[in-house]
């Protein structure tokens, strides 16, 4: 299940829902990404006043479905959930949730990490931050590209 939304989400509610949907799961992993107070990518100094998330409607959903499908092909998953917020966020707000359920912990951990790694590099979202020093688009990080390598080894 995939949602792109302006609204915040409740991790407790989402966990309860995936636990229900997953049936006989032995392991549920959740990842939550949050707006940090300071972004360390050097593009600005100073505390973040707001973060604006832009996306490409249509392609975003397609892309997240593809990623979810790839994860389901690779691990025996009982349920997955992806929520990504868009619009204006502020310090400490939740940005993204990925949750996976499986019989065993390995599949749940690996698939959640896989989905996040692909989401970071392939899903069409862009972050712009506003601080006292002004506005700037956050730059993509080489480490995010590198994170994909581990999934592509033969």
């Amino acid at each position, binding site marked *: 299940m995939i949602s792109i939304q302006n609204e915040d989400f409740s991790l407790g509610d989402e966990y309860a829902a995936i636990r229900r949907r997953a049936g006989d799961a032995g392991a549920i992993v959740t990842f939550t*990404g949050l707006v940090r107070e300071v972004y360390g990518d050097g593009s600005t100094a100073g505390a973040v006043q707001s973060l604006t*998330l*832009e*996306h*490409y409607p*249509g*392609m975003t959903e*397609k*892309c997240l479905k593809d990623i979810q499908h790839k994860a389901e092909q690779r691990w025996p998953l009982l349920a997955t959930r992806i929520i*990504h917020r868009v619009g204006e966020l502020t310090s400490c707000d939740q*940005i*993204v949730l990925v949750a996976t359920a499986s019989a065993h912990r390995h599949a749940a951990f690996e698939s959640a990490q896989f989905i*996040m790694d692909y*989401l*970071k*590099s*392939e*899903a*069409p*979202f*862009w*972050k*712009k931050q506003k601080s006292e020093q002004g506005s700037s*688009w*956050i*730059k*993509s990080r080489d480490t995010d590209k590198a994170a994909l390598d581990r999934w592509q080894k033969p």
Partner: protein
Amino acid sequence: MLSIQYFASIRETLDRNVEQLELPRNVTSVQMLIDHLLIANPHFEAVFKESSRSKGSKVLVAVNQTIVGRNHPLSENDEVAFFPPMTGG
């Protein structure tokens, strides 16, 4: 009609988010479209010219919502999008 969308820093630099374009007969690939846009809008150079962009500000292209290379063919009614590397999550 070809539709072209621009996102994030590219949208801001070009000051436009979407446009419609009658695909010229001689434009049959993404690279040809970029060349065509550069002639029609000289200020696009800041975004599309390799030489004028700072390191790391790569332009990605999607055709029909899939990321493609510069040699990807174009057809009438394609949905083209230009954007910088993604920074979601």
